[in-house]
């Protein structure tokens, strides 16, 4: 199975600090997604991204969140001022195409702990 990688695996931060989560996509897979999973809850969609633009975002993805591909390779999720409730596992997903039949491949996740 194609592999998406994410760094760091675990990030601990103080409330109010900025964090950047990174994702290295699969080669030639140009559609990007971020999901999160709060402990004990469902995996939730945050945002989809293609061609340097956000395609879709959920109500969770407010002004505190942003995404970009700063070097045309890595895909990042930035949280400007973290809150306690941002503590969760964040998953990057990657697909070759954007169609409904295309498989999204997930990275191993970054566990974010906000203190």
């Amino acid at each position, binding site marked *: 199975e194609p592999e998406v990688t*994410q760094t760091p695996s675990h990030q601990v931060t103080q409330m109010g600090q900025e964090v950047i989560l990174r994702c290295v996509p699969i080669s030639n897979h140009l559609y990007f997604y971020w999901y999160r999973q709060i402990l004990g809850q*469902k995996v939730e*969609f945050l945002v989809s991204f293609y061609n340097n633009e956000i395609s879709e975002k959920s109500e969770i993805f407010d002004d505190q969140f942003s995404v970009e591909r700063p070097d045309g390779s890595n895909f990042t999720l930035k949280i400007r001022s973290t809150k306690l409730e941002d503590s969760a596992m964040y998953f990057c997903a990657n697909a070759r195409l954007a169609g*409904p039949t295309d498989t999204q491949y997930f990275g191993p996740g970054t566990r974010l702990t906000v203190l």
Partner: protein
Amino acid sequence: AQSVAQPEDQVNVAEGNPLTVKCTYSVSGNPYLFWYVQYPNRGLQFLLKYITGDNLVKGSYGFEAEFNKSQTSFHLKKPSALVSDSALYFCAVRDVAAGNKLTFGGGTRVLVKP
């Protein structure tokens, strides 16, 4: 809005016995359904998907899933479970109207006992 339900939080099965993990869905339009597995400290691994065609879909690691349109179900099955199948299983549906995001069920923990 699309939704997925996994009615069982946990399924216990003895090694060698058949394993079934249940999933029901609600969509408007054609259903595009996926199963993922999450092992401890790992990400979500793709198992299989239903797009169209045969109602029985075969996937990785000996898993298969049966699509039933009349019952709006997409149950995951394995004829003979292994201890190594112990993991968290997620059913998901593609939301075509919302950028093809995945909407996940709550997950079912499978425990296979030797």
